[in-house]
């Protein structure tokens, strides 16, 4: 459960925070293609996270909203010509800005506040971990749809082959090394075996 003070801090500064995150994304070298997106749409999306910080961070991943939202986002970003590393970077820039904002308000004299910050960090990290995983899943799905690309080891047959190759390597390593037999014939060394 997020503490009221931190929630109020983020939600109360949602407009200003969102603008600063959007500026960061639009000016960062790792997220150049975000210029393809309408700035207002991007701002609205980030404002939604900041203004409903408590809701998004306490969302249970099993309930599926984060999963669906970020899978769809991964697909949408692909259609908008944004690469996967850029999408991942934008999510991390957002997280970093939120984290900097929270830690800038840490009160060193109160252990309770530090506990609250630490607790918030778990939720923040968990939320963005799920977001990055699901956005990547969505991106992989659309790569398969559009380019027919699927990671080879996703294919059960290819996976079985790779496991068989591994078994073979392991067997060779476990076998005792056999030294070649030495046959001395008139000063020559002939190796057999």
């Amino acid at each position, binding site marked *: 459960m997020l503490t009221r003070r931190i929630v109020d801090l983020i939600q109360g500064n949602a407009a200003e925070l969102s603008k600063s995150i959007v500026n960061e994304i639009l000016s960062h070298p790792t997220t150049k293609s975000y210029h393809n997106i309408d700035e207002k749409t991007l701002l609205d999306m980030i404002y939604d996270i900041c203004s409903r910080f408590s809701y998004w961070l306490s969302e249970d991943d099993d309930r599926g909203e984060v999963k669906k939202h970020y899978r769809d986002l991964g697909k949408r970003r692909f259609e908008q010509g944004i690469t996967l590393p850029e999408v*991942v970077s934008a999510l991390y820039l957002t997280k970093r800005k939120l984290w900097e904002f929270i830690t800038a308000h840490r009160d060193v004299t109160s252990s309770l506040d530090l506990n609250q910050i*630490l607790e918030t960090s778990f939720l923040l*990290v968990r939320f963005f*971990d799920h977001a990055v995983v699901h956005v990547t899943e969505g991106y*992989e799905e659309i790569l398969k749809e559009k380019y027919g690309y699927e*990671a080879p080891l996703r294919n059960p047959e290819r*996976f079985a082959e*790779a496991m068989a190759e591994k078994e073979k*390597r392991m067997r060779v390593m476990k076998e005792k090394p056999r030294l070649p037999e030495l046959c001395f014939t008139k000063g020559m060394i002939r190796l057999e075996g």
Partner: protein
Amino acid sequence: MLEKMIEMIEKNSESMAEDLKEKLLSDPDTKSFQTLDDKVLYEDIHAFYSRLGYWLLRDPEMGDVKSYYTEIGKRRRMEGFSITELVRSLILTKKHVWDAVLEKGIMDAPVELNSGIDFITYLNRFFDFAIYYTTLGYYKSLGVS
């Protein structure tokens, strides 16, 4: 305190590497790791844990972090891994480090909580870049424009 947390992980790098290896091998979401040689996988994880301070305390935007993880992304793509599996494995590693710090009960006093916040900042900063560069290496090697 930050050093104490890093030292604790480095000292326990062998058992932690073994534990994470088992987690990666038994998790259905990171199934492709089963195709790697166990010893190689263990050594890769151990190399990271035994030098955690080296990795966490340097600038992750450049140098070794960038080149190592870009290369990992590229290599794992060639080996047939999916990018989601790689992202999941790095998140699992981060969680594993953090759980170890919590389990050892290092953070009890307020000053230790402050170090805990510093530690989680370094840890996240590192893994954000590790995941970003892995994704970059993987994606570039796909040749998708």
